[in-house]
């Protein structure tokens, strides 16, 4: 008699599908070493990361910027450093809000005080993260903003 095998239900997503389902993080950080470290940490945690080094290039140009993993504009979360040579993190956040997007924004900064937090939350930031921070703190913040 012939055995008919029924394929078992897949209980894991395959590589590509899994990739497509992960939230996309847009990372804006001018310091190359920190940017590399942040990206590596996030990727290891399962996020797709699109990197940028200059916020001022993005403001007004969101639609134009392509990374090798897709258009920047489609990110679900933006992580931006506050103090950078081009636009500041708050300026990026302002621009995002002006366009009425629902993208969450996390601001990282070396100088976090009440005034910065007040302004960031007023503009609708999801979180303000103080440098230096560790891996766990970073992932927790991101997961709260955009759960897997």
């Amino acid at each position, binding site marked *: 008699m012939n055995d008919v095998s029924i394929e078992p239900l897949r209980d894991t997503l395959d590589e590509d599908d899994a990739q497509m389902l992960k939230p996309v993080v847009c990372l804006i950080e*001018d310091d190359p070493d920190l940017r590399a470290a942040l990206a590596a940490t996030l990727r290891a945690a399962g996020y797709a990361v699109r990197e940028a080094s200059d916020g001022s290039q993005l403001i007004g140009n969101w639609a134009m910027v392509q990374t090798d993993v897709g258009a920047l504009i489609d990110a679900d979360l933006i992580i931006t450093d506050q103090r950078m*040579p081009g*636009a500041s993190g708050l300026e990026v956040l302002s621009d995002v809000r002006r366009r009425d997007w629902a993208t969450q924004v996390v601001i990282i900064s070396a100088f976090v005080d009440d005034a*910065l937090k007040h302004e960031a939350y007023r503009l609708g930031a999801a979180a303000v993260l103080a440098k230096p921070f560790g891996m766990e703190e970073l992932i927790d913040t991101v997961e709260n903003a955009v759960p897997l």
Partner: protein
Amino acid sequence: MSTPLALLAGDTRAALVDTRDLDVLMQRLEQLTPDGLATLEALGAPFAPTLREAAAGQLTRELRHDLRVSLAALRTMADHLAAPASSRPLSAEALRLHHSPVDLTAHLRAWVEAFRPLADARAIALELDAPAPRPCTVDLGKLETVVLNLLFNAFKYTPTRGRVIVRLDAPAGATDAVLSVRDDGPPVPEAEWHAIFDRARQLERNVFSLGFNLGVSLAYCQLHGGTLELRRPRDGGCAFAARWSMNAPRGISPGAPAAVDDTFARAVAEVAARELEAEATLGVCATDGSRPTVLIIESARALHRALVDCLRDGFNTLSAFDGREGLDLALRKRPDLIVADTGAPGLEGEAFVRAVRAAPQLENASLLVLAAYDDVAAVRTLEAGANDLLRKPFLLQEARARITGLVAAKRARDILNDTLGRRDADLIRLANDARTQQKALQSTLEELNAAREVAERASLVKSNFLRMISHELATPVAALQLHVQALAKDPSLALGGPTTEGLRRTGRVSRRLHHLVDTMVAWARVESGRLKRTVSNFDVATLVQEVVEEVRSYATEKDLALNLQLERWLPPLPSDKKLVHLVLIDLIGFVVQNAPSGRVDVSVVPLRSGLQVRVRDTARRISAGDRADLFSPLESIADLRWRSGHGSGLGLYVVRDLARAVAGELELDAGFQGPGNLFVLTLPALPHPEVHHERRVH
């Protein structure tokens, strides 16, 4: 009183109708000193014959006349001899009478003619109305003085195209002659009528050292048994009338007749002409800013000129002749002091003072009011705001002294107002406030000193903290670096892909940390004055090459071209190698970090002594305003947090301070044409061997 003359005089009482002169004479005799009495005896001796005859009894009309004249003369002499020096009595010599036979008309004609040139020059009609030759016996000198005095005054006050009329009335048979001089000038104000005869009144003119003074002229007429009076003609102008006895009392032997001589008269006319000329040019003197300015408002020109003259030495003067003109001038020129005669027309007395005090530009000016001594209303000028009141007649010295005092007070107010930043006329209040302010400044100074001590201490605490923390950081950084380097060398680690990349980055980051800590330590030492330089000869070219290579990975990441250009031969540089390395790393690292794209060119060129390292980018040009901020240690934390920076990274002031610690300099070349920016680091050759402690850099 038992002098012969006195007794004789007393004896004439019965013969007299009017005993006034005798009574006053007897009074004066009581007041005279023995010397005075003796002088009176001598001077009065010529009158003794008349007195004797009169006392004897039989009085004719002529004798009565002679007696009257004698007693008048004696009384005048006694008045002067008994008078206090302050009233400037005539001297004995001036009182002595020298009678001689005189043809009055001839002399009078000569004296009047001496004024003809002046009359012609001013188009004044000068008329003499005198009878045919009229002989008399008088003291010619004294009469000449009287006549010239009257003519002088007439010409001083008569305006151009006016008239001066001289008239001699000496009818045959009359005992007295009357000379009147009448002019078209302004009348003497009633309040001053008898004041003008005050001998002490300082309006003398010295001609051949003879003072002209109406008081003196009056005395001379009195010595001739006559008088000098002021008349106010009905149709305007001013007139003086002098009366005197045509003949000397009996018993007086006259001297020789004198020839007609107009020398003195001409001299007097010339003085009058000169004074008139000077008065015509009364106006604003060239002002010398260092001298105080006094505005004189006085319509009587002679007094006006006298005031100007007495102030000439030490003050600038401005002149006005009526109140309105004066007020306008004051508003324009802002004098220190205004001298105003209440009688000046246009704006009178109290009204003038009120107008001055109401003007804000004049609120600090001092105001001296001149008024006739019987002008009771003048006191109101003080209440209205005048600073002082001087009664006429006055002595010019007194006027000058008061003016000097008032100007000094005004200047003191000016200085205090300036210091206190106020506009106040009350000197006492200003002085008190100045004292209060000085005390306040004193206590502020003490507070500032205390604050400075606190600040210095705080700075010391911060310096110490900086030193401590930078030293503490050095240890873990050193450990980190060593671990990383060990890991990189460890063959047992499966290196590949992300791990290698991670280790590379870790190494780079820890090296950056190392440089930052080094910079912190060095700067802390410079800032606290504890830097010790170690000078050695080293090859800058090699050092720069090392730095460029270390920074290259950052440049490559950003697609930034990083080029190094070295002169073929560069001398070794005697300097502190560690510090120079730090400066190079910080500078080139800063430029690379902030250049978004393009290129960075590093070049090293030799100088006469030392080297220059030039780092140039093609980034956006740093504006002049940003240039200042770039090197400012005072950029606030708020800016660090909020604004997108002119570069993150170290403030360039740190790098510059370290450059200066090796006697070098870091500048942004403002003249660089671009594109981009050019940083120039100058490193001089240091003397060596050198061991010294660096001064504080900033």
